[in-house]
């Protein structure tokens, strides 16, 4: 998981004194998450008497994360570390789009349509995709899923678009 991509890292836009940008940004992001959690749990009741309130544990963990995030960021200042790795946009974009399409489509359009479309949208995420092949494999996979999930495993799922059934 931790092997860094072999592509050359992007040039750092951070000031000179940041010696490990990867850790620096990583730590700051954790601090941001912690601050967000503190804000989100600020309306919850704290300790009352000997019993914990709803907000005690979340705030405790948020403060802990805040400190740890700050420590990680500090490491990024004190120690030389790897630069920020390059992100690509194509994979994340199309894989996310496929997932979102599936989520939005499963209720109104059913398994068959949304699974097939999600397959093709995800396939857009790679420049290696060959379309004829992808369509054939996608169709077979959809057919397989349409038999496997509702019939073999008995999971209740809409199969076809709602407007076709009614």
């Amino acid at each position, binding site marked *: 998981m931790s092997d860094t991509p072999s592509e050359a890292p992007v040039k750092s836009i951070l000031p000179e004194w940041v010696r490990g940008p990867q850790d620096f940004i990583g730590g700051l992001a954790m601090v941001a998450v912690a601050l967000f959690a503190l804000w989100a749990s600020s309306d919850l009741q704290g300790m009352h008497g000997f019993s914990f309130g709803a907000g005690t544990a979340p705030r405790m963990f948020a403060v802990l994360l805040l400190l740890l995030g700050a420590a990680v960021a500090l490491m990024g200042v004190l120690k030389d570390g790897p630069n920020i790795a*390059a992100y690509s946009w194509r994979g994340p974009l199309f894989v996310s789009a496929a997932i979102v399409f599936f989520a939005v489509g499963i209720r109104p359009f059913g398994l068959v349509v949304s699974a097939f479309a999600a397959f093709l949208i995800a396939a857009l995420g790679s420049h290696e995709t060959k379309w004829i092949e992808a369509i054939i494999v996608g169709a077979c996979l959809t057919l397989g899923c349409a038999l496997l999930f509702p019939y073999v495993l008995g999971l209740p799922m809409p199969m076809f678009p709602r407007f076709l059934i009614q």
Partner: protein
Amino acid sequence: MELFANLAHGFAVAFSPINLLMCLIGALVGTLVGVLPGIGTIATVAMLLPITFGLPPVGALIMLAGIYYGAQYGGSTTSILVNIPGEATSVVTALDGHQMAKQGRAGPALAIAAIGSFFAGCVATVLIAVLGAPLTKLALAFGPAEYFSLMVLGLIFAVVLAKGSVLKAVAMIVFGLLLSMVGSDIETGASRMAFNIPELADGLGFATVAMGVFGFAEIIRNLDHGAEMDRNLVQQKITGLMPTRKDLVDSTPAILRGTVLGSILGILPGGGAVIASFAAYTLEKKLAKDPSRFGRGAIEGVASPESANNAAAQTSFIPLLTLGIPPNAVMALMVGAMTIHGIVPGPQVMQKQPDLVWGMIASMWIGNLMLIIINLPLVGIWVRLLRVPYRLMFPSIVVFCAIGIYSVNNAPVDVVLAGAFGLVGYWLIKHDFEPAPLLLGMVLGPLMEENLRRALLISRGDWSVFLSRPLSAVLLAIAAGLLVLAVLPALRAKRDEVFVESEG
């Protein structure tokens, strides 16, 4: 000997053609459920409950039990092949299993997972038969204070899990703990950080987050330009399918330790099997002569957690069969299956339903035998799957994962959340944060908070309960000891580092 008479009776029940068939169906469906990412045993057993309406109760329960432990066999498959855990219990299997696959050793990894599971399953079955009743006491001895201390120990385990920076691993655990706080507060019912999203009312699902940070993140990362070469490497150099003699020698002690650990943790209510697999992995890493091998394809890192999770899956039947109290959600469904047939399990279920109890115990051994016979030949097929070009493989995995997550609660929001966690996971990879400690934090978080609060409610705010209860004190002492062991080398290393830097 009453035990042998009981077992003989059990085997007579389990060997009836209908029960053998049920056992086989259970094992097959379980393997399938385990292999498919996202689809969990809870959802499947719940879906198959109505089918058992028309079956004799013994056969029905044999089948449902088969699905449960069968899933432990299948769960490792996708962990190893594509770094996507099929079940929560095989998250740690992915750490070394997938590295083995990258080195062309997917075959031995899958085979050792099956062999370890088989051994653990056999031992745990004997344990249920012989020691079921006395072990029940353990389940009852564990009150909130003991649970909390066990969870603290679990957190220390998680620190040891770290491959790289301990600081970052701890940050990930705390991130996991924080994520686990989302949902309803157990004591007041107040909604916490759920932003009025009804699907978040009961918190983030473990499967949702695991699928995101492991599954989707892995796919997105593999689509990066630089990663292409890596993938081709996986596909080309596939060496032997079966473990070598050295692999077996290396794995044997790991399997034994995993079995013992899993058997004990499985009895405890709650996330027994998940914690068992994490704990077994940590133990191996701590005991290894060269801990740096872990996370880079150490076969013990596959053998031990896979043995532990299967052992735990079997022994989690003990509280059900001896107390009539289900220790986890799948067992609660088993109670449901019995209830549908008019058998409400209680402390006397062993005396009142000998056919059911002993038939089920005997069937577990038969089921494990069937599973290894099913799974070893499958290794060849799975490994061949790796030759499918990644451009076709990854959209298929996306679709399977999406359907799997949707099926857990029939909630589209869960799928979107998993996608979002995929992006989070991609970001984490880019910043060299590990997802495994995050997931462990998520599992332990609620157990820890709830039991801490329960313990303090019962003791009226007196923190000394954690030390005055002997079992709890022992667990905390072990935790403290482990922490010292984990921190000492890190401190020493830091001193050396400072030394080196000041020299230069």
